[in-house]
C-alpha cells in the first residue's frame, strides 16, 4: 500500500485556489487514487488566511493535512508560506508565489510585514519561488496565475506526469480560457 501524499495550497481569501485544487483532485481521481480535499468557507474568506488541503493514496481517511506531513506546500502569498511552515514534512518542498498582501494590522501601522521571508525559508527548505502573476501576464492574463502555480506544484510533487492534465483543464475551464490555462500549466511546470 502506497503512502498517502499530502499537499497544501495556502493563500489569502479571494486569491482563488478553488479552480487549481479542483483540477488537481479530478486528475488524481482519474489516475485511480483515493482523494480527499478540505477547505474552509465562510467568514475567513473575507481577506483572511485560507487553506486547501489535498490528500491522495490507495486509501485516505482524514481530510486534514497534519503538522510535519505536507510533501509540498504551494503558497499563493509569501507570509502564508511562513505561517504554514510547521505543516511541511521534513525534506518537503515549497512553491512560493513572490507576492505580498498586507494584512490589516500592517496597513494600520500596528505590525510590520516580516522582511526577507523567501530567503529565510530557503535557508531551511527547498523553495521554488517566482512571480506567478508576471508569468501569467506574459501569457496574456494575470488571472491564470493559479494554474501557473498548479503546474509548478505538479512538477514539485513528481510521479504525476502520466495524468492528462490538458484534458482536466479542458473539462474544468470555460472554453475561451482553455488555451491560456494549458499554456499557464506548462509554463509553471517548466519553471
Amino acid at each position: 500500500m502506497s503512502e498517502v501524499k499530502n499537499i497544501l495550497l495556502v493563500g489569502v481569501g479571494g486569491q482563488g485556489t478553488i479552480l487549481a485544487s479542483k483540477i488537481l483532485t479530478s486528475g488524481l481521481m482519474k489516475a485511480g487514487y483515493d482523494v480527499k480535499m478540505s477547505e474552509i468557507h465562510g467568514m475567513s474568506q473575507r481577506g483572511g488566511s485560507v487553506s486547501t488541503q489535498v490528500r491522495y493514496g490507495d486509501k485516505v481517511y482524514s481530510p486534514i493535512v497534519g503538522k510535519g506531513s505536507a510533501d509540498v506546500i504551494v503558497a499563493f502569498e509569501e507570509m502564508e508560506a511562513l505561517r504554514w511552515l510547521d505543516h511541511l514534512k521534513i525534506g518537503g518542498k515549497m512553491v512560493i508565489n513572490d507576492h505580498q498582501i498586507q494584512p490589516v494590522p500592517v496597513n494600520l501601522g500596528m505590525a510590520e510585514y516580516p522582511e526577507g521571508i523567501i530567503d529565510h525559508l530557503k535557508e531551511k527548505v527547498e523553495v521554488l519561488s517566482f512571480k506567478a502573476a508576471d508569468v501569467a501576464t506574459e501569457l496574456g492574463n494575470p488571472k491564470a496565475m493559479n494554474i501557473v502555480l498548479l503546474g509548478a506544484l505538479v512538477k514539485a510533487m513528481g510521479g504525476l506526469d502520466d495524468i492528462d492534465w490538458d484534458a482536466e483543464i479542458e473539462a474544468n475551464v470555460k472554453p475561451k480560457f482553455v488555451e491560456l490555462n494549458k499554456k499557464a500549466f506548462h509554463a509553471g511546470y517548466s519553471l
Partner: protein
Amino acid sequence: MKVIMSGNEAIARGAYEGGARFASAYPGTPSTEILENMPQYGDAVYSEWAPNEKVATEAAIGASIAGVRSFCAMKHVGMNVAADPIYTFAYTGVTGGFVMVVADDPGQHSSQNEQDNRNQAKAARLLMLEPSDSQEAHDYMKKAFALSEKMDMPVLMHVTTRVCHSKGIVELGEREEAAVPDYEPKIKKYVTAPANAKVLRATLEERVEAARAFANDCEFNRVEMHDTKIGVVTSGVSYQYARETFGDNASYLKLGLTFPLPYDLMKDFCSKVDKVYVVEEMDPYLEEHLKMLGIECTGKDVIPHYDELNTDIVRKAFCGIEPETYTSDMQTVVRPPALCAGCPHRGLFYCLSKRQKKDGLMITGDIGCYTLGMAAPLNALHSCICMGASLSQGHGASIALRDAGKKTKVVSVIGDSTFFHTGVNSLMDAVYNSGSNLSIILDNRITGMTGHQQNPGTGYTLMGKEAPEVDIPALCKAIGVKEENIITVNPNHLDEVNAALDTLLAKDEPTVLITRWPCVLKKFSQQDIDEFPTLHKTQCVIDQDKCKNCKMCVKTGCPALISTKEKVVIDYTSCNGCTVCKQVCPFNAIEEVTR
C-alpha cells in the same frame, strides 16, 4: 459513476436519490451548499430559501404531513431557532420521510458558538445519523427518508464542518421515487392538543426503543475487529482521525446511527477489547452513555472538550507522539478578515465610528458580514449574540438606559436577510413598546456572508424564478414606525449618512435608517444595474503630489489601500470605486477615475 463531491453536495445528491420532493433551508455556514446544490435536481425536487430555520423546518414538516419526502437544512445555531417545531414533530412522527440536516461547526470557523447538537437529538428524541465522509453523507441521506418512515421518527442528519466542506469520491446511484398517498387527515397524530400529545409522548418512548433495537443490528453501525488490545468507539469525522492514528492496531465500533444508541452492540464490542478509547469532537456524548452502561473508558480526560479534532490531536492525546516539524523564529502577522474593498457597510460604520464617542452611542450588532464593523480601525459594533438580536437588544437597552436616567443613545445594525430572519419581530417589539433605538437595516440586496443567496428582498428565488420583493420602508411603516422616521440613504455618501443620523438620533421614538447599496461581490441583476448605474464603473487613485501621507484614508479600513511608511497607494485590482477614502481625504488627493 464516481465523482468528487463535498459532503454538502453529496447530501443534496443523496436527497435527490432518496426520493425527496421538497427542501427548504436558511443559509448558514457550513450548511449553505446543501440547498445551493438542489436546483440542479429541480425537475424532481422543489427547493427554496426560507426566511429562517423555523419556517424552513415547518414547511418541510408540512410537506411530510402531506405525505411527501422532505428535508430542511441549517447550521447548528439554526436548530435553536427550529427547536420549537422539531421537538413536537418528534412526538407526532412523519407521513412522508423527513430529514433535518444540521451542520455543527467545531472550532467555530464561522460561528458565534460551538454547540454540540447531538445533545438535541437526545433531548428531542430524533433518530440521528452521523456520516464520516462524502460517500456516507450521500448514502445515509439517501436511506434516511425510508428509515424515517419505517421508524415513524424525524431523522436528524448530524454533520460537521469537515464533513460538509471536505471533498471525497462518491459512487452515485439512481433516484428512487416514493409514491405520494392521497391526503387524509390524521387528527390524533398531528393535532398535539394535550389529550393527543400525552398519548404521543408515551408512544414516542416506544418508537425510541424500537429504533434502539434496530440500531443494534443495522448497516449504519459497524464493528471493525483488528488487534483487540484497544477498542475505539467513535462517530462522524472523528472516525477518520482515529483510523489514521491507530490503523489496524486497534478495533473500532464505528457508529453512524447515534440516537438512540445501540446499547447491546456497545456492551458487546467493549467486552471484546482490553481497553476502550472514545474519540469524539466537542461534548462527551458517546462517553457519557458508555459510562452510564458501566463501561470504563478513556476519552475527554485526554481529548479537549472543545475545538475541532484532527489526527495530530488524537495521536498526541492517546499515543503521546508529536510530529517532527520545521520551526522559525520569524513572526507572522495575523490576517483577520475585513470588510471587502467597496463594501457598502464601510461608509456607515465609518460614520458610526467617528460619531460614537461624541454622540454617546451604544451600537448593538447582529450576524453577518457587518459583524466585521467591530474590527479595527472602525471598532463600531459592540455586541453580536444571534440572528435578529440587534434590534431587540437595542430596544431593551434603550428602555433600560432611559429609565436609569442615562443619555446613551442606542443604535442597532442588522442586514437585510437577518432583518427578514427574525429582526422584523424585534422591530415590532420596539415600536409596540415605545422604545427609542435607531434601527439601521443594511440592505445590500443579497444574503452576503454565506456567499450570496437570494432572500425575500432580492426579487429572485433559489430556483431562479422572479419573486415579489419585500418593501422594507413599507414594512417598517406597517409595523408602526412613523413615515418621517424612516430614511433610506446611499451608504457610500458619508454626508447623506451623517445627515440622516443627525435627524434620527435627535428623536426619542423608534426610527429606521435603511442603507441601500449592493454587495460588491454579488452578481448584479438587471434591476441592480438599472438602480445603481455607477456600480463598478469607476475607481479611486491617489495623486501622490497632493498626498501628505496623513493616513486618514487608511482609517476607513479598506483593504484596497496599501499603506507603507513612505506612502499610500490604491491597489487598482481591488478598488471598486466606493469613494469613501476620497471623501475622508483632507487634501483632495484622491480622484475618482473611469475604469
